[in-house]
């Protein structure tokens, strides 16, 4: 019984963490049809925010403005200089953002150093669930992901900006014809997607070992969750994160970590090959 509860908690944590990590990638792809290969590096950048806050002796909450500034500024520059010219050129944008990811990784090595870092969790301690003690911070992140995901879903459905975004995705030419500045809206969407990635990195930082190279793993895991779920929708993201996160925790628990990883990769190949639209298809 206890092992089952623990497994469920672990799987939920895996799924929540994956969904959080992949959210920005899903946003950028869903709204702009851009495969942002530098997504992982924005996660990495966000993860360094609490490291910097700790180094500067600031309270843990100071990581939030640091993250927003650092990631927001980088994303804005990237959009201006690179991504803006590559909308609707999927393969070129993939290559360019990949080059960018290497640039950001190497830049981070230069600025932060190559060593692995850890940050203390701002929410220490353990919450008792039956006989199981589970880290409170993880439970808090799970709750935040659920609340945030629901909030975002509602916002996209109800708000005026959400409506304009939906209009742009549906029919860019007509969106312009009703006076929507699609260039600015796209820029905003890209920066927001990167900020989501940064915030995910910041929130997950206490549970990861932080290094300039951590982006690749973040990208690949996010990416495969989206492939399986269906690229570019919040529902697909939730579905994909559940399948990938669940599969990985299941296989890891039953066999080894390696089996979990190989299982995810094989599933991703199968989907890329046979079902490129993923599980959740929009009408």
């Amino acid at each position, binding site marked *: 019984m206890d092992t089952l509860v623990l497994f469920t908690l672990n799987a939920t944590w895996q799924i929540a963490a994956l969904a959080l990590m992949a959210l920005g990638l899903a946003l950028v792809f869903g709204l702009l049809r851009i495969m942002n290969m530098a997504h992982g590096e924005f996660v990495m950048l966000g993860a360094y925010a609490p490291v910097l806050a700790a180094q500067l002796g600031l309270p843990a909450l100071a990581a939030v403005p640091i993250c927003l500034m650092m990631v927001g500024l980088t994303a804005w520059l990237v959009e201006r200089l690179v991504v803006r010219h590559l909308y609707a050129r999927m393969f070129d944008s993939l290559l360019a953002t990949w080059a960018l990811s290497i640039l950001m990784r190497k830049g981070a090595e230069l600025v932060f150093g190559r060593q692995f870092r850890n940050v203390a969790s701002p929410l220490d301690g353990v919450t008792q669930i039956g006989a199981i003690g589970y880290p409170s911070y993880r439970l808090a992140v799970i709750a935040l992901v659920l609340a945030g995901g629901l909030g975002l879903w509602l916002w996209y459905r109800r708000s005026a900006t959400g409506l304009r975004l939906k209009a742009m995705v549906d029919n860019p030419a007509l969106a312009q014809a009703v006076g929507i500045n699609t260039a600015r809206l796209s820029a905003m969407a890209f920066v927001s997607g990167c900020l989501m990635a940064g915030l995910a990195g910041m929130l997950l930082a206490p549970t990861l070992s932080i290094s300039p190279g951590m982006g690749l793993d973040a990208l690949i895991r996010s990416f495969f969750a989206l492939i399986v779920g269906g690229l570019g929708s919040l529902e697909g993201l939730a579905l994909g994160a559940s399948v990938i996160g669940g599969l990985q925790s299941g296989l890891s628990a039953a066999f080894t970590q390696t089996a979990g990883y190989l299982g995810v990769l094989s599933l991703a190949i199968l989907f890329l090959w046979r079902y490129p639209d993923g599980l959740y298809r929009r*009408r």
Partner: protein
Amino acid sequence: MTVQLDKISGGYGDTLIHRELSLSVAAGEVVAIVGRNGTGKTTLARLITGELPLAGGVIRLGDRPIRPLAAWGRARAGVVSMPQTGMVFDTLSVHENLLLSGATPAQIAAITRHFPRLAERMTQTAGSMSGGERKILGFARAMLMPGTALVLDEPSEGVQPENIARMQALIDAKRQAGTAVLLLEQNISMILAVADRVLAMDVGGLTFALEKHQINREAVLSALEI
């Protein structure tokens, strides 16, 4: 406001569909362009709205050259359009489609009194409606947008006669309000009902013009002969 096209050229890539085409629509005038399919009517509409870039020439709205503006900028400057295809946001509801015009709830309620069909389907997605109903929705959206020029690309295609009559009344109201209306149509009765001037288009450019007193069924039909 007057819309003036001065020797505009353009098309798809370097495939020019129009070369040095000129025409002007005065404020409070409805100009209809007739021509068979494939003669470049839709391309002309796209060149005016900015969906396609001009290869040459000048477009003025009043005294203002609008060529430097992107499509969204032209829409905000007052060039309202209804494209021939893709005239609605398929995945959005009827209400959301109308909201995107920027109109107030009262204005939306007013327009749906003209088209009761829309009022019945407010929460339905636009893509699930028939072709004619989508035309009506796109037309209603264009009517709601504030603007001084109106480009309508085949609004009547697949629309029932009684709704075409309502469209004609609304176009007439826009004319009364001083809007310059460019109507790209094949429906003769609509042209006869609203046009102040008719221009015939064939592959390669405008072929002849009919002033108000010359407009009759036979004259317009001759522009559609194959």
